[in-house]
């Protein structure tokens, strides 16, 4: 792995190890490690305000990575991701209010709800394309937001649901610095998952569907399955981002998520 690899021309990945490597050239490796170190020491120098901004950047990064998978790679437009974000946040809020579930229950639950909604959001994509698909996801966004609002008013939390900070190892997670690292880990994990998904069979199938659906089908790609898969994965990620957002803010309300 020590050999230098020029990237500008040709395809030089000659063995499986090269193909697996995340950083190929020395420059990439050096800059990547500098970046990681910088991210790791940043919270010890930054002011609370900058920490807050960094945390929001990580949250937005998770959300936009998931949207990138769906719209950028699989080519399916969604205007409803704000609704999915809300769905994740409300899953946390509702589970916390009704059962006082800890965060290691609510986060997977949010992902599950997101994935399930992803199937629903994705179903129109089997029939509709482009603008009309975007509209149908927008419509579903309103349905989700309505359901959240309905819960709020029916249960009497009309101004929103407040959530206690999650407990990790018996300590409440309140400091901005701890949040920074948690969100950093989640964002990095999302990035890794996306990178690896995109160079797998699934990612290539998405690319094919985006480029030309008919050809993708002729090549033996199950278009319906991969479209739904794109929606499910992307929605689950977005819902997790929404759930983290809810914990980070300690508060869920329809207004904040519109």
């Amino acid at each position: 792995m020590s050999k230098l690899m020029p990237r500008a021309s040709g395809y030089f990945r000659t063995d499986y190890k090269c193909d697996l490597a995340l950083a190929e050239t020395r420059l990439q490796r050096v800059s990547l490690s500098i970046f990681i170190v910088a991210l790791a020491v940043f919270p010890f120098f930054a002011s609370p305000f900058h920490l807050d901004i960094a945390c929001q950047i990580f949250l937005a990064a998770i959300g936009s990575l998931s949207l990138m998978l769906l719209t950028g790679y699989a080519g399916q437009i969604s205007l409803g991701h704000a609704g999915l974000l809300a769905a994740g946040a409300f899953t946390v809020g509702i589970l916390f209010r009704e059962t006082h579930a800890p965060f290691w229950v609510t986060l997977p639950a949010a992902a599950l709800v997101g994935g399930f909604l992803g199937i629903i959001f994705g179903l129109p994509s089997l029939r509709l394309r482009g603008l009309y698909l975007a509209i149908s996801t927008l419509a579903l966004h309103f349905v989700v937001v309505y359901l959240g609002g309905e819960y709020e008013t029916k249960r009497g939390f009309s101004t929103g649901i407040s959530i206690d900070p999650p407990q990790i190892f018996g300590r409440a997670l309140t400091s901005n610095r701890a949040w920074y690292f948690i969100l950093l880990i989640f964002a990095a994990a999302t990035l890794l998952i996306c990178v690896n998904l995109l160079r797998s069979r699934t990612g290539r199938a998405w690319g094919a569907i985006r480029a030309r659906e008919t050809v993708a089908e002729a090549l033996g790609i199950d278009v319906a399955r991969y479209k739904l898969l794109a929606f499910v994965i992307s929605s689950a990620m977005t819902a997790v981002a929404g759930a983290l957002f809810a914990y980070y803010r300690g508060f869920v309300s329809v207004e904040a998520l519109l």
Partner: protein
Amino acid sequence: MQLIVNIVVLAAIYALISCGYVLVYRVSHVLNLAHGELMMVGAYLLLTTAWLFAGNPIVAIAVALGLSLTVGVLVYVFLMRKMTGEMVLAAVLTTVALGILLRGLIVLVWSAQQQYPAQALSFTNAAIELPGGGRISTFAGILVLVTATTYALMFAFLRFGRWGVRMRAAGQNPLLAAQRGVSLHAVYALAWSLSTLTGSMAGMLIALDSGLDSTMAVIGLKAFPAALVGGLDSLVGALVGSLIVAGAEVLAIHYIDPLLSDVVPFLVLIAMLAVRPWGLFGTREELDRV
């Protein structure tokens, strides 16, 4: 009887708003998702002119209408003009961004609290008894009349007007229209200004009827299903779609749950998209890919 009146009023609101969606879509094939916000801008403009010309309601309304026409032209000249010929999706996303921007600006300029332009113009909004036992507020009645007039004028304009024909031509085949000497930019600008004007009229009348705050954009967005159910490029469709959506909404509010009001139009929309995406009266187009 009251139920029917409610349906008609709501349908008139939706129809007046959705004809803006239809105009812009039919002429430039751009879906204007900022229409609700533009409508709100119109309503707030009326509020401002009402403060400026407190004694002269007619002047205030006329100035506000003129300003909203200008807003439409400005939106086209400074924003959508750049998107002409670009990907349709890019243009649609531009309007989404414009909507968010306008919403923020409105709160900055006019604050988020509830306002009553009718008070500023010292109008009273008396209820009118209708034969048959229904009641309708004055401004709701005016709104129904305005909608009817607008649609009649719009039909005549698109059918017989010189610019109306140009607009239809530009919508059908921009390249051919341009080669026949139709100025596309002028036609698009006209479509945007007319769309903003009708939207603003709706916004003003709703604001006069029931007050004005920054959630009005939601009404504009709810009118969008009406446009799509009828077919995005058909004015008749917009009328019929408005009736269907308004009917479904009023009945759901009356018989099921008032909270449903925000979601029923979108449920109708989803049902329509599943069955007949191009709408009741729309032309079936090659759905463009991303």
